[in-house]
């Protein structure tokens, strides 16, 4: 079945599941999934040693007959990164 998706007409596969933890209320929650929406994006997501306040953006695909364009828009959300490790 999956081979059917590995063709040019399928432009992109978009998934969740793989996300970092941030704004943890307590570092003793080693496996607690990110309590914020990991569909949001901050640079801190990818640089876990960067602690501090992070502003989140939402990934947006603008699709119309003439184009497919990726961009970001503000999520209206700030969190504080406190990585457990």
């Amino acid at each position, binding site marked *: 079945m999956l081979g*059917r998706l590995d063709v040019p007409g399928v432009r992109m596969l978009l998934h969740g599941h793989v996300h970092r933890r941030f704004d943890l209320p307590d570092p003793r929650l080693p496996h*607690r999934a990110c*309590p914020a*929406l990991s569909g949001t994006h901050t640079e801190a997501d990818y640089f876990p040693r960067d602690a501090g306040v992070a502003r989140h953006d939402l990934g947006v695909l603008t699709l119309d007959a003439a184009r497919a364009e990726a961009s970001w828009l503000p999520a209206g959300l700030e969190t504080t990164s406190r990585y457990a490790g």
Partner: protein
Amino acid sequence: MKVIQLSDPHLGPRDHDDGLRRAANRRAWDHAEHVADALRARPDTDELVIVVTGDLTDEGHVNPSELPPAAGWLASLPGAVYAVPGNHDVGNFVSSTATPTVSERYLAQWQNAVGPDRFAYAADGHRLIGLNSMLIGSGLPPEAEQADWLHGQLDAADAAGESVWVFQHAPLFLRAADEVR
């Protein structure tokens, strides 16, 4: 249309017995509601298609009382809203060392509280397809049903000349579509 993907809000009970989890769940709800407020305040809500790619709940499979409030949050989002389940909603891959694994009972809980576990939406020369990735490799009857449905959607997209965008919770493969899970 403007497609916004959200994922993994992990909305669990705000009154969880465990204090740490209670705090985490309250924060998760705060964040989710904050984002919903921000989206509702946008001037272009009639253009929005919001896709939530799983782990809507924190333990919705074993604690199905988490599902209705989380479905309420989905309903609070503007625009056209679609969701597919994750491992925290309907169980893990059968090949996973993590338990419990996906089951038809967990799937029925999701369907009863949240709605279908897959979707398709076509507009403007594009087709969005949402899959229940947790079923893949399960051998459960709904896996074959979903595969048949997917082939039908891809055939329809081919016939219409549409671009296809596929959403799911877990990555379907790492390097090649035919790799063994």
